[in-house]
């Protein structure tokens, strides 16, 4: 196969042109997204440093963030409850590639945290310790973001956002008994 320079050499107007070798082709999808009524309640509560879950009236599983329906039973999750800001890491990964616009240094740890009383893991970053010290069964608690979830709110409440949870950090307690989270990994 000829090179682009060899191909262009045969076209008088283009013999000296700087060859094009790459194009940037953005694949872009613009959604109008609604998190739904249940997650709206969850997000609004986060700005007040509260973790609002919902429970299935049939199987009693507790979901956070709530989606308004139990994916197992197909029932509306009508029971609303608040969970404590503590939980257990049930799985995690180390992120080595920085996402654009994310103000966190790599590598960092991202984990599922099974909040106490919940039956699904909440996704969150783990901080406050070297990333290679994170392990399954570790006990952690929420560190709130002061901007997105002020401790002493004044005036207009901040816009509801998952950014209210800055990250989770170890509590220093002994690891959780695997029997407490084994079913919910």
């Amino acid at each position, binding site marked *: *196969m*000829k090179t682009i320079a060899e191909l*262009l050499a045969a076209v008088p107007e*283009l013999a000296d042109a700087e060859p094009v070798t790459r194009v940037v082709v953005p694949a872009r999808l613009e*959604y*109008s997204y609604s998190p739904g009524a249940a997650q*709206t309640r969850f997000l609004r509560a986060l700005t007040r440093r509260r973790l609002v879950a919902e*429970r299935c009236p049939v199987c009693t599983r507790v979901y956070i963030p709530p989606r308004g329906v139990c994916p197992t039973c197909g029932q509306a999750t009508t029971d*609303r409850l608040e969970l404590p800001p503590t939980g257990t890491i049930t799985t995690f990964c180390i992120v080595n590639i920085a996402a654009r616009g994310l103000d966190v240094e790599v590598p960092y740890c991202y984990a599922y945290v099974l909040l106490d009383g919940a039956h699904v893991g909440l996704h969150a970053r783990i901080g406050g310790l070297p990333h290679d010290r994170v392990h399954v069964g570790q006990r952690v608690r929420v560190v709130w973001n002061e901007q997105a979830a002020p401790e002493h709110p004044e005036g207009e409440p901040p816009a509801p956002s998952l950014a209210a949870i800055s990250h989770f950090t170890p509590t220093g307690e002994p690891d959780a008994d695997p029997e407490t989270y084994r079913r919910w990994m």
Partner: protein
Amino acid sequence: MTTVPDPEPPATDEVLSGPLIVEFPFTRSTGPVIGAFLTGLRERVVLGIRGSGGRVLCPPAEYDPVTAAELSELVRLPDTGTVTAWAWNAHPRPQQPLDTPFAWALVRFDGADTALLHALDAPPPGSADPRATRTGLRVRVRWAEQRSGAITDIACFEALPQPEPRSEQDGGPNA
């Protein structure tokens, strides 16, 4: 654990909604043939490539669609051509080439044997205007003012002044 009523019900139960944009800015290498084609567009030059049987392919291909032979003979083409097929787009979406209704058209450049897909800025099909969108319409490239070596260097096609309708006697220029 017990179910608790919300002691601090939020001021509103309006469901949240907002824009969510998912974007992957792929960078693709063009290869020598498409690279040459895009280099040409940047310089307002249309290039095809010679294929088997002397056929001229535009947009150019790296390999012959019939024999699979490697192709390398670029052919300089004029920036005029003929519409071979079209589809009317009555409701352009954001970031499409034109923000007024237009046609997606296959345009066979003069001297080429295949057609290029692009936008055509012409009156709607069926209108009395002789430049209305139709198969056989004579068109020319409208070059973008800012060109970077991309298919968008062709802003769109626009209708040329159309030849007089062919008469019964002489069979017309394309007879």
